[in-house]
Each structure stands twice: as C-alpha cells, then as structure tokens.
C-alpha cells in the first residue's frame, strides 16, 4: 500500500517532538474526523531554523509530517508557504488515492504555524484559500 519512502518516514520519522517557546505553532485537524497535526517552528531572519511535529494519525499522516518538516527546514517562510501537499506526496514517492488528504494536513499545519508566527510578530497573516479544519474526509477519492 505504501511506498518504501513512506514506510521509511513512518518508521523513522524526522523531526518528531516539540520546541519549547516556539516562534510559531500550527495545528490542524479535528479529533472527530481523526487526525491532528501540530507543527512547531523556530524562525530566525525569516528562515526556518528548526521544525518539529506531533501527529495523531495514520502512517501516511506521520510520514507526511516527517517529509514536510524536512522539506521546509532551512527554507524561507515564503518558500515554506508555497509547499503543497502534492509536493509532499510526490517527495514520498506517492500516496494511495484515499490517503492524499493526510498530506493536506501537513500543508495546513505549516500555513497555520507561519501565520501564528506572523501574528505574534505583528504582521498581517497570509491568506489561505483552503479551510484546513473542514472535514477532510471528502478530499482524496
């Protein structure tokens, strides 16, 4: 069902954990429909110095968290904002169709963490065209 890449990131997830006094924290999901992903950012000079995650979700959700955090580490906030769930899925060697929505969580949690940082720094939050807390179970199939 899962590619070797997914299994690798699931078995040996990168960046699991939390950051004390993080510059930005984003959480999406809803325990009712299953998954919760929380992302912690450490930002210095507009660059993501460190990132950690905690995820309550399936193998794909954990692997997506791991891959997404790897992909934004060391990037500017603008670059991180542009990371799409599709790019995460592709970097994982693909996800089963019904598991695509798990990668959407990663995109959403990053966006929220970035905007959390922006608000804390008195900046205007960037506009998001998706509502990540919607029942994501329609996404995918």
């Amino acid at each position: 069902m899962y590619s070797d890449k997914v299994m690798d990131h699931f078995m040996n997830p990168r960046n699991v954990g939390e950051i004390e006094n993080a510059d930005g924290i984003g959480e999406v999901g809803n325990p009712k429909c299953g998954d919760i992903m929380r992302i912690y950012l450490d930002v210095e000079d507009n660059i993501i110095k460190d990132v950690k995650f905690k995820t309550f979700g399936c193998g794909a959700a954990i692997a997506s968290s791991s891959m997404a955090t790897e992909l934004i580490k060391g990037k500017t906030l603008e670059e991180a904002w542009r990371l799409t769930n599709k790019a995460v899925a592709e970097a994982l060697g693909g996800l089963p169709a019904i598991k695509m929505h798990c990668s959407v969580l990663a995109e959403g949690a990053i966006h929220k963490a970035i905007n959390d940082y922006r608000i804390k720094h008195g900046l205007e939050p960037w506009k998001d065209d998706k509502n990540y807390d919607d029942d994501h179970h329609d996404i995918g199939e």
Partner: protein
Amino acid sequence: MDSKRIVYMDHAATTYVKPEVLEAMLPYFTEQFGNPSSVYTLGRKSRSAIEEAREKVAKAIGALPEEIYFTGGGSEADNWAIKGAAFANRAKGNHIITSKIEHHAILNTCEFLEKQGFEVTYVSVDENGVIDLEELKNSITDKTILISIMFANNEIGTIQPIEEIGRIAKERGIIFHTDAVQAIGNVEINVKDMNIDMLSLAAHKFYGPKGVGALYVRKGIRIENLIHGGGQERKRRGGTENLPGIVGLGKAIELATADIEGHNARIRALRDRLLNGILEKIPYTKLNGHPEKRLPGNINVSFKFIEGEGLLLLLDQSGIYGSTGSACSSGSLDPSHVLLAIGLPHEIAHGSLRLSLGDKNTEEDVDYVLDVLPKIVQRLRDMSPLYENFIKGGR
C-alpha cells in the same frame, strides 16, 4: 525491526487452511473433478463428496442435510438470506429488523433493500455490544418479515442472546436469521433448540478454504434465489459446485466442532493472559466488548491518544499481525460502526486494536506481543499531540 518471529493474531479476518483440510480437498482438483450434476461415475463420485460435506455441516449445527445450501462465502450467504426472505415475503410485509453492529454484508444489503422499498430498523446495543432486547421487541410490527441478528460480533467478539431472540421471533411468527460466520467452532450451536430459521457461515473463518460458505434454511422457509441458474443445490443456488471448496468446508467444520469446549479453554487461557498483560502494562487502555460473553480468541482494546493504522504497521515490522477499527485503515475513512455503536468517541475508536487468537498461537507468542506492544504504543504516544496535551494538562 525486531526478530523475524511471526505472530498471526488476525484469525477473525481469515485463517490458514489446516493441512488435513487441504489434503481432503486435493483429489478434487485434478482427479475427482467431475461435475456433480453429471450422471456418469466421475460425476456421481463428486455428488457423494458434496453430500458427505453437507451432512457434516448439518451435524455441526443440528440441522438436516437437506437444509444446508452451499454458497461462495459468508457474504453471499448473508445477502441471500436477507434479500431472499425479503423478495419472497414482500406480499406479507416490508419490514426488517437487524442491529447496528452487523457485518457490512448485512448492513449494505439492508441499505439496498431500503432503496427497493423495504423498511429496516437497526436495533441499538449497550456499551458491551449486547442487543437491546426491549428495543427489538418494541420495533416489531405486523409488517415485520425478518429479524437478522449476528451470533457473535467480528470486531468486539460479543456473543448475542440468540436463544432469546429466536424465541421472540418464533412467538411472533417472524423469520429469524443469524450471521454465525464468527461463531462456528467457538460457540455450541443448535439451530433447532435456538429457533434459528437461517444461519450463515464461511469456511475460511475456521481453517477451511476461502470462497466457500453455506446457508442453512429451515425446511418450510421459502426464500427467493440470489444466484439464479442451473439446477444445483436443489435449484436454489445456481452454479457449478465448488467441489474442492465444499469438501474442505465439510472437513473444516467437522474439525472445528469436534471439541469446542476443549478448544475454547485453551484459547481463552492464552487470550486472558494476553489481555491481562496488555491492561496491566499499558495505561489508558480500555477493553471493548463484553467482558465475559465474548468469543474465546477475541481481544479488542483502545489505546488512548494513538491511531490504529500506525500501530498495525509498527506491529507488522515486528512480525505481529492484528487489525484495527480505525478510520484510517478502512477504505471508507469512517471509524468502525461497531465501536461507534457501543458509544466510543471517534478518537478512542481510532486507537483500537483487535487481536484474534487461533489454534497455532502459543504462550511464547503472547509473551512476545506483551514485550513488543507496550513499546510501540509508547512510541506512538510520544508522537501524539493528544498525549502531549494530556501530559501537560496533567502536570
């Protein structure tokens, strides 16, 4: 990745075929392959093999051989029973009673029938998964033609008060079907004593082959065919008989019902050792299903703060095979309807694990699982934002 020890604890999903069963089947693939409907010797030999298997199935559940019809599996038997009774009794009424925790072979069939103009009542269960008998009685109307309640639940293992339900149905003259796919070999069944009119079973749940099952239909009960066709199964189920499969089913049910008590005692002892170990070693864990009235090999527990698919994948890495009611591992992305019906909140249903023990499991298997499982649960909890909240909230 731990050692390559393999511990299969998903017998409720399917079992391997026992060597004696396969051996009984083998001649019927290549040598004794004749069509049982043919008049010649080769066909007649096939016919007697089938009739012998029919007698074994009948004996196992206290039925008459002529009340047993072979099918292509448990789902076909369930579909046939429900649709067959519905279409044949439409003139009498259009109301069917079943439960909220049936297998999808029943539930989705009922949904289909609702589209065809039937009405279905889905009776609730209590927190242990036991049918609410009062609700069942109260939902009977003079249009009720069928009650279908499963003998034992595949997920949480709860065994239903089948005899009582049989009595209620009989008093009101309503056909009573039970899906006994999980019960065969684990519970003593006598269809006459229990007033069961129809019963479904599937060979692959008791060390027989996949793709073959049976429906018991009490003499005198008229149901419409599901697979229309040739004159097979006394014209009630078309299709060239699955000869090796049927022979395997016969052999398997004979073995599975030869010593139910002895089998149960052994499996239950192992199961309890495992269950008690899990509850002792892993905090924030809840047993699902009835504490006593449950299948001897069934464990269903919910580990708070984690999700079941990840659990299964990590167990797999250690060679342990189980299953979960988590949404994430089901095709539909809904958590188990059974776990929801017993009142579990979504996130607790999410963290459920079913381990179903079988004949080859040993004490070493149990100890191995008790060694591996707590570490895996902890590893997932350490990744879980819910656990983090809980620990911080607790501090």
